[in-house]
């Protein structure tokens, strides 16, 4: 291992919040991997929470259902398999939208001129619709469901990356080594891929890591509004949607339905927290200038 990499890892491990973030992330990864062992699927689609009872009233935790039952479905099962849903949504959306942003941003930044102008104005236009609203609208038009949520989040999720990479490329473009490569007749495509991107990619990776958390929140918010995952799908947002309906009709009934919020809510907060802490840590190590 290179000494530089070693030093980076050492610095990461000295930072307590980074250690916490990575530990949480490892914990969630393990949960996601061994989900079929913890909660064996009972139907052909493991992501559908099996129906525990036909009584829709929430039931507090018991030995059989450790997190309680809501809408006749086992919350524990939903939280465990919901981890997979969260990873799926977070990673797919972030990766795809980052790649799209990279493509658009690097073309705009590297070639400049009218191409840059057009691409950046398109970026402006996409940025002019509030993210959560764009997600809601596109999902409604595509016809709801988790895949539609992911498509809409990707459609309106690439702009920050595009702007970031464009700005960085504008700086790098004037560097000696890029000028030298171009003078030697290296093709544009190769210059971008071999010289420009490796020197501009770190901020993009950091930004993408920090975005995963808020993406998972937005996707869950759509499920919470009833636009995302179908009823009964193992998804933290939909579990919380059930809880909302019961809470609104329960004044003065104390903590009667606490389990319906606390368990899926904690899972979500910790998951998002893990990504945010890891993002912060990566930023501190790779780009100390941005430290806040």
């Amino acid at each position, binding site marked *: 291992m290179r000494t530089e990499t070693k030093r980076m890892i050492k610095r990461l491990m000295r930072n307590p919040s980074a250690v916490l973030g990575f530990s949480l992330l490892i914990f969630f990864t393990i949960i996601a991997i061994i989900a079929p062992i913890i909660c064996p699927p009972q139907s052909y689609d493991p992501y559908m929470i099996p129906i525990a009872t036909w009584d829709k009233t929430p039931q507090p935790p018991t030995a059989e259902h450790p997190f309680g039952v809501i809408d006749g479905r086992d919350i524990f099962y939903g939280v465990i398999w919901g981890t997979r849903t969260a990873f799926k949504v977070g990673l797919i959306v972030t990766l795809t939208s980052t790649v799209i942003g990279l493509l658009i941003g690097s073309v705009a930044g590297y070639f400049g001129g009218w191409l840059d102008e057009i691409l950046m104005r398109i970026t*402006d236009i996409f940025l002019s619709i509030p993210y959560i609203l764009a997600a809601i609208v596109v999902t409604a038009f595509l016809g709801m469901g988790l895949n539609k949520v992911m498509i809409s989040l990707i459609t309106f999720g690439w702009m920050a990356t595009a702007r970031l990479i464009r700005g960085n490329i504008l700086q790098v473009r004037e560097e000696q080594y890029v000028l030298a490569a171009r003078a030697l007749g290296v093709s544009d495509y190769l210059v971008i891929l071999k010289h420009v991107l490796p020197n501009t990619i770190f901020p993009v990776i950091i930004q993408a890591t920090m975005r995963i958390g808020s993406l998972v929140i937005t996707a869950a918010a759509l499920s919470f509004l009833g636009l995302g995952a179908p009823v009964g799908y193992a998804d933290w947002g939909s579990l*919380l949607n059930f809880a909302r309906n019961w809470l609104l009709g*329960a004044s003065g009934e104390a*903590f009667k339905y606490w389990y319906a919020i606390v368990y899926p809510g904690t899972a979500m907060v910790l998951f998002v927290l893990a990504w945010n802490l890891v993002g912060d840590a990566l930023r501190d190590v790779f780009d100390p200038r941005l430290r806040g």
Partner: protein
Amino acid sequence: MVAYVIRRFLLLPLILFGISLIVFGMIQSLGSDRLLAAYVNPGLLDKLTPNQLEKIKEKYGLKDPMVVRYVKWLKNTLSGDLGWSVVGKEPVKDAILNRLPWTVELALYSIIPVVFVGVWLGIIAAVNRDKFVDHFVRIFAVVGWSFPDFVFGLLVLMIFYSVLGWFPPGNLSFWADTVVKSPEFRRFTSLVTLDALLNGRFDVFVDALLHLIAPILTLSWLWWAYLLRITRSSMLEVLTKEYIRTARAKGLAENVVINKHARKNAMIPVITVGGGMVIQLFAGTVIVEMVFNRTGMGSFTATAATQLDYASIMASTLFYSLILVIGNLVIDILYAAVDPRIRFS
């Protein structure tokens, strides 16, 4: 400065044109049969003969070529004819005008706690860098930023409504709603808290306020975390500047250095971010209004989306985008006015 403002204004129509294209494109992806629902009260739709349906399609130009339809749609939209809202059971324009004041009230009142608490926490953290207060505030920021607004909102709802019974969900209590809708209650501003005061109905004012506290707390929570981070890092940067060292060297008291010399300069990035935040507060009402069962633009949009009320969805999108675009313009101009480095570069 003038050139900068002019450039921004020249870009405005271009962006609005782009948004209208996106919105129009989405409508067209539906096909003409489903589009009829956006123009006609769906209750009537079943009673019409195919011949009448064709006439309506003709009237709204659903059979014309794309460009003609775009121009027509734009004309209708600009003249305020936004179609029929299934969710609101009234024309979209009225539905929006009836709900807007509630959302404006919520978003505007949220600005006060967001800005004051956020900036205050950020400055405290920066001044006490690496001390206990700083660590505490930073942990608060990270955890707060990781807390989805609807999870936090549900917790607030559970604690302050289900357990304590202090802050009920909804817009107004039933009795207050009756008062507001009665003919004696004059609507001066259509913001219910202000109107209540102007009408001398202090009880209605208190009731409206009680319904606002929980959603405001939920909206503020997320942005405290955000704003305090910006303020802290901006303040830290300013504190390393030469003029701060000079101020300290000439023996000024520490609180004068912080309050007079550092804070003003540290506020510049906060203004840009803070302005964007106000716009995001409006978008945030979508979730918060749903959590607290409030009537407003946000819950209107969300309900329209779940019930596939396309006319309302499109109008809301245009509305929110307009707020965003105009808001951003105002912020940029303000920013250039505050920071000379921007307008001369």
